[in-house]
């Protein structure tokens, strides 16, 4: 549709946009360096002894009582995975693909914060620059313009995520190598270890992490369209998204998070893991997210369509 092409032109013809893309690339690079320096990724020949040592320290940590639920969960998961590697004689392997799978939720989080900038200004900036008057007096209804702008903001988020994942694969391949595409990705589901082809895991977790991006962009877009303030929209959205992200991790496993939308946005827990709270299902989570997106649009859409442009 022409209106979406217009919005895309306005996004991608600005230098600023490419600075944001560069940010995502730098972010991924930092993650790679981080992993390379902080963790021992090369287990070498004596990987068995290393895993065994790790398991001992993990068991010790599990005995402590002052840990968060999420810490316990992570430790138990790691323990199970390590045991699985030992039992089946599979040496753990870090390669470009497994790195990318592991980084997806990080990348989506970083991308969301940046996509909020576009989502937050795509409507408000037209008011700020006065171009809204020309835009709304063309042969296009406000409804069409609203949805063209929303689509363009979402597309930008997806594009940025893709850039992030491709960078992750490309640059980590220089360090970890591209081998291992035929290998399996292992995860813990219902106390047992399951393996799926790595490519399936990559595409799967990309798709399953996207609700977070949608929620962040929609929130920014809603404030932008309803209140016409770019700054307000970006600041509030980044704050809410940050707090939501941190709470959903820190409070993981607490019963009340069932009613907290950011605990639902990572759908990976249903396919490649265990739900954070018992009783949560994929359908329920998807429904809960859609409900939130709908509410946001129900606030901003009528305001945008009816507003007097004075």
């Amino acid at each position: 549709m022409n209106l979406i092409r217009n919005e895309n032109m306005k996004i991608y013809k600005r230098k600023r946009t490419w600075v944001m893309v560069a940010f995502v690339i730098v972010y991924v690079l930092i993650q790679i360096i981080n992993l390379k320096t902080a963790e021992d990724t090369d287990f070498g020949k004596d990987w068995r002894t290393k895993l065994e040592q790790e398991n001992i320290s993990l068991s010790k940590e599990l005995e402590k009582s002052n840990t968060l639920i999420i810490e316990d969960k992570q430790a138990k998961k790691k323990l199970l995975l390590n045991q699985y590697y030992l039992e089946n004689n599979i040496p753990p392997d870090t390669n470009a693909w497994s790195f990318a799978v592991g980084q997806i939720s990080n990348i989506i989080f970083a991308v969301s914060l940046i996509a909020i900038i576009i989502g937050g200004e795509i409507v408000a900036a037209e008011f700020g620059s006065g171009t809204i008057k020309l835009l709304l007096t063309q042969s296009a209804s406000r409804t069409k313009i609203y949805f063209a702008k929303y689509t363009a903001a979402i597309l930008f988020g997806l594009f940025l995520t893709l850039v992030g994942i491709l960078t992750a694969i490309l640059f980590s391949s220089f360090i970890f190598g591209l081998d291992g595409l035929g290998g399996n990705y292992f995860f813990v589901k219902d106390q047992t270890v399951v393996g799926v082809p790595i490519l399936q895991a990559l595409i799967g977790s990309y798709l399953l992490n996207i609700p977070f991006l949608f929620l962040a962009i929609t929130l920014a877009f809603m404030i932008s369209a309803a209140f016409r303030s770019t700054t307000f929209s970006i600041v509030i959205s980044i704050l809410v998204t940050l707090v939501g992200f941190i709470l959903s991790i820190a409070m993981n496993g607490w019963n009340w998070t069932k009613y907290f939308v950011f605990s639902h946005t990572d759908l990976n827990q249903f396919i490649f893991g265990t739900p954070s709270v018992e009783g949560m299902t994929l359908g329920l989570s998807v429904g809960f997210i859609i409900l939130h997106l709908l509410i946001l649009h129900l606030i901003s859409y009528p305001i945008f369509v009816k507003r007097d442009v004075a």
Partner: protein
Amino acid sequence: MSLLQISDLTKKVGNKIIVDHLSLEMDKGEILGLLGPNGAGKTTTIRMIVGLVSKSEGKVFINGEDTSLHFEKAMKQVGVIVENPDLYKYLSGYDNLVHFSRMNSKVTKKRISEVISLVGLDHSINDKVSTYSLGMKQRLGLAVVLVHKPSLLILDEPTNGLDPAGIRELRGHLISIVKNEGVGVIISSHLMSEMEMMCDRVAILNKGKLIGIHNVSEMVEDECSEVGFEVDRPDYAIQVLQSFLAGKTIIADRKQIKVRIPKERIPEISQQLLGAGINVYNIQTVKKTLEDKFIEITGGNIQ
């Protein structure tokens, strides 16, 4: 069918009535001015016509198309500039044109280059708009609203912020567009001398109400105008003329004497003066401006 038909257009905000049951019509090839002091409701009227502001009451038809029912169809025939043409500064002039021509179906590349040369921007069309002068932006704004060949142009205070040369240029463009493309133009302004030069008809608004619609030529060319005679002996001249022009007021202003008379009487008056031995150095007709007329019509009660 008229190009633009407005009936009972009303805007209320709270208890305040900003535009009060305004009705008017205009045809193709006509430049109609909306004239009125600040706060008369010109801008609100224009914004209601183009759908930027919602109507409290009334209807707007463009070529018979109701703008509330078929907004897209009606707006296909309209080009709008509200105040200064705010364009995308970070895009080039050409990209701005592409942007807005995509919003209207059936705009060819040929048409785009046509409007570019029409407004004389051939050399700078690929530069970013942020490098343009106000006059260039104004011209690009015109190109943007003309690119889809509208039959109605709506301009709200187009001369705001332009210098006299810019205003003159804009006027030239508008008049040639009306002539060449046969469009109708509706302009709001508070600059009366401008309206006098551009418009065929003016609709005068005051406090949200339409006071009257006048043909500019009729308004300006009155049967009686003020004529000033510059003479060497004004006191004597008044004496001479008093008996000749019985009943008329004669005003002496230093060496000038002023009377309100029809044009046809100028020769006989000058003959009278010369015959009495008074030297006449200058005869001047003071044209009545739209401004005088405007003050007269609104009763001078602009506030």
